[in-house]
């Protein structure tokens, strides 16, 4: 693109940041009205200004919290306790089925460090402490579809003879009209909600989403939760062990 350098062009950045004085604002706005290239620049840089808003200002504080390290000590104590508990469990396991335990550890290792998307962090599993009590029978599972790249973590909470479904979905193509489907053991497919995948500026990728839905499926009959689009294409299926 061959365009001349305008004096005003370099003011577009501070203009979208909102730090110019009134005279300068008027100057930029008058110029932008007549200059298509600068109009584009305004919208491009405004996207960046919006993106900056995703980062909280506290992100720029460094160092440990002021006022001593009681919080650190408390955390370290808890880690020691959890580790001791985990070691105890491991010893028991070792006695019964050492090979199986090792296989489990191996699998966990590859699940974290391997896969199609090596940088993405895994969804964090439910923690046994410091979270509200979980209704009995709640199941949490996640899966990544290697073909579509779609990822989902679901939590299925039993109600009387139906289920609440909470799903966090990412990696879907923007613009898709998607349905969250609860699959029964008999093959029945019950929709639990639908949405349209948004586009995440500035990357243009599909927006991740978290959804709360429900389905009239008996908790004991739930076999899987899936995401499909309106033409029936399945993006990801998360099997739920009984």
């Amino acid at each position: 693109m061959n365009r001349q350098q305008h004096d005003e062009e370099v003011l577009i950045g501070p203009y979208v940041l909102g730090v110019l004085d009134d005279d300068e604002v008027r100057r930029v706005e008058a110029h932008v009205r007549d200059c298509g290239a600068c109009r584009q620049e305004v919208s491009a840089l405004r996207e960046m200004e919006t993106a900056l808003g995703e980062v909280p200002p506290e992100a720029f504080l460094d160092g440990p919290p002021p006022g001593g390290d009681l919080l650190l000590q408390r955390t370290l104590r808890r880690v020691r306790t959890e580790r001791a508990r985990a070691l105890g469990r491991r010893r028991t396991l070792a006695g019964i089925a050492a090979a199986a335990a090792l296989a489990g550890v191996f699998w966990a290792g590859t699940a974290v460090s391997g896969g199609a998307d090596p940088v993405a962090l895994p969804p964090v599993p439910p923690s046994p402490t410091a979270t509200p009590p979980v209704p009995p029978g709640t199941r949490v599972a996640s899966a990544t579809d290697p073909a579509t790249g779609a990822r989902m973590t679901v939590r299925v909470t039993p109600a009387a003879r139906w289920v609440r479904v909470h799903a966090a979905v990412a990696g879907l193509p923007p613009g898709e009209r998607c349905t969250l489907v609860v699959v029964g053991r008999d093959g029945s497919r019950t929709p639990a909600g639908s949405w349209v995948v948004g586009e995440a500026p500035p990357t243009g990728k599909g927006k991740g989403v978290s959804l709360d839905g429900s389905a009239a499926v008996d908790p004991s009959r739930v076999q899987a939760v899936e995401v499909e689009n309106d033409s029936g294409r399945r993006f990801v299926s998360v099997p739920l062990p009984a």
Partner: protein
Amino acid sequence: MAGPLWPRSRRGSTDEALIRAVYEEHGNALLAYATRLTGDRATAEDVVQEALIRAWRHADALVNGKGSVRGWLLTVVRNIITDRYRAKAARPAEIAGSPATPPVAEDHADAVVDTVTVLGALDRLSPEHRDVLTELYYRERSVAEAADTLGIPAGTVKSRSHYALKALRETFTEDQRPGAPRQSAGFREVTA
């Protein structure tokens, strides 16, 4: 794989060193953020403790991931707080056995992607560009104040902030190139 075979003491000191390092480097940011969101210092400390524990559990991802560690931690803090509020809000409904609520899409998950991505992109700017954006945007300084703090003329503050935003845009464009490493955690955690 070394997990169960490691001597206990060595494993222990590594764990503690990791948590200590994360706390020393990011503790202030995490606690200040949690305090603002919860409005309560004691609750904020609980939240930060939980976030540090999660960092410890996911040490592999934390150490090997290419995104911003601080972005990941801040995201974890926000998720813990959101999930606590949600759990509180949901409980009376559980008792009442309320009818099915329509699914609600939240921006929560999107924001998760972006804090990590944007902070990662800021990390890759030159210090001059990062500083000018930090002053003007995050510290909400005027051009004159930023000029004073940074020791440069006001005109330079303006032009530098312009080029800083352009450079930021460049780093995002790089991320989008095929084969470029993904920056984002891309996934909201579910705490049951």
